């Protein structure tokens, strides 16, 4: 084989070998473990009932206010898109208004203002009343109920009795 050809062959072989080695290195490079899959927002968020504030409704609209605390797990920020409840005769607004964001690892107090529109359709003695929330994180948007426990149930019953105890129907 002429010297020129031998050189060309060697150069081609070198180029192919370097390319192959590079491709192998690239394809088999050590890769970091993929981050764990983010959980649904209800799995990383909890709500805690704090306290109830009953108002004197003799001269104002029948309404009361309770405060809950939203807690997000670390690295799992969440947005509360809505807060509601399933009972006919009640409507809710919140302060701060929804949507509101809770930082990962953080918590936020939320005042929930309850307006009674029809006392005949409220749960005056519910044992485990719900608060329904819609949550969103980077994984999903999700509707979920939180059952805030016996103390919330007692306070809610008392607040409803006061709100509906002034001749309001």
């Amino acid at each position, binding site marked *: 084989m002429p010297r020129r050809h031998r050189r060309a062959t060697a150069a081609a072989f070198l180029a192919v070998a370097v390319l192959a*080695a590079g491709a192998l290195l690239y394809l088999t490079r050590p890769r970091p473990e993929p981050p764990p899959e983010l959980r649904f927002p209800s799995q990383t968020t909890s709500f805690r009932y704090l306290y109830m504030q009953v108002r004197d409704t003799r001269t104002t609209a029948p309404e009361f206010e309770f405060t809950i605390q939203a807690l997000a797990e670390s690295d799992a920020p969440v947005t509360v898109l809505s807060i509601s409840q399933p009972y006919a005769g009640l409507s809710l607004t919140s302060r701060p208004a929804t949507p509101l964001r809770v930082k990962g690892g953080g918590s936020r107090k939320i005042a929930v203002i309850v307006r009674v529109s029809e006392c005949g359709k409220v749960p005056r003695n519910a044992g485990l009343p719900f608060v329904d929330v819609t949550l969103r994180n980077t994984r999903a948007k999700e509707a979920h109920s939180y059952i805030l426990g*016996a103390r919330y149930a007692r306070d809610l019953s008392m607040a409803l009795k006061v709100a509906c105890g002034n001749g309001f129907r």
Partner: protein
Amino acid sequence: MRQRSLIAITAALAAGALTLTACGSRDDNGGGSDSGNGDTTVVIGVDAPLTGDLSALGLGIKNSVDLATKIANKEKYVEGVTFKIEALDDQGQASVGQQNATKLVANKDVLGVVGPLNSSVGESMQKVFDTAKLVEVSPANTNPALTQGVNWAKEKERPYKSYFRTATTDAIQGPFAAQYVFNDAKKKKVFVIDDKKTYGAGLAATFTAEFKKLGGQVVGTEHINPESKDFSAVATKVKNSGADVVYYGGEYPQAGPLSKQIKEAGAKIPLVGGDGIYSADFIKLAGAAGTGDLATSVGAPVESLPSAKEFVANYKAEGYKEAYEAYGGYSYDSAWAIIEAVKKVVEDNDGKLPDDARAKVVDAMQDVSFDGVTGKVSFDEFGDATNKQLTVYTVKGGDWATVKSGTFTG
């Protein structure tokens, strides 16, 4: 010479690349084997109905515990310990469950028991295990009295230190169902039926109390004989009552035919039950008319939890013939809680099991905390799961479909 050098350099580069590749690749073999290589054998007992009407749920429990022990052995999770299971069939009967408890206590290698399915069976086993200081973790018992005492509604008092459970109680499940039925499904008149057993009657009672508190009306109540499959007389009563929903406290072998016969009697209303009817077998037994029936079950749907994906994949890989059913994830977590407790006891004793291992495992169980299939697994001062989630399912297209999930945070 120059060319030869180039060739040599190229070859060296290629060889180096291959060497680096080998170094950089992950070892997918994992190591270990299913049989484990520990010196000490620790047996995890399983008690569940492995034959009879409730065997679909029971076999799902047994297989899931078996899977947990295989994973622990493969990972050599507890140094020097190989886990095995001893599964006994309680046939859903309290007396058989009690005999099984005695058998498990007699085997000195048993350091923990997963089960049973039925609350009535659990009730019969508690004292036997507690006397022997043998820990019991139920993935499925939901009657509140088992952890909070018979007067749980007024004053909670833990009756047995050795009893734990990963399932949520009916103190939450019954009211959760009542809230959904009254507020979301807008049903106001209920006919309540139960099978007179610890689980069924207890669940029906907690449902009824909350339904009444919400302003709902109970238009009729009946008890059925769980040995029977003819519920036509009850079905006629339901039809004549004007109820717009039926609540059944009991299990799917009776709930399926009951739902079918209620519809055949002319009452086209949904039957609602608890975790005891949340089974594929309920849908088979209820037939096409069961579409729209509802069940609450403990926890979030296993398939919706990222933490459960590995469990589901491993369960399939093991090739179990039966599905993991409603309690598979909870059974795996119950077994893993025992494994964690054993690990703690061994590590605290210089790598060996102490003579009073059973008592030590009971103590360690109280502080167990890990991320399990069903979420965070830990226990409160009564031995109840701290993770209290519930889900409403409905029969749709021949399968159970998720309707609503809730979490108790009180």
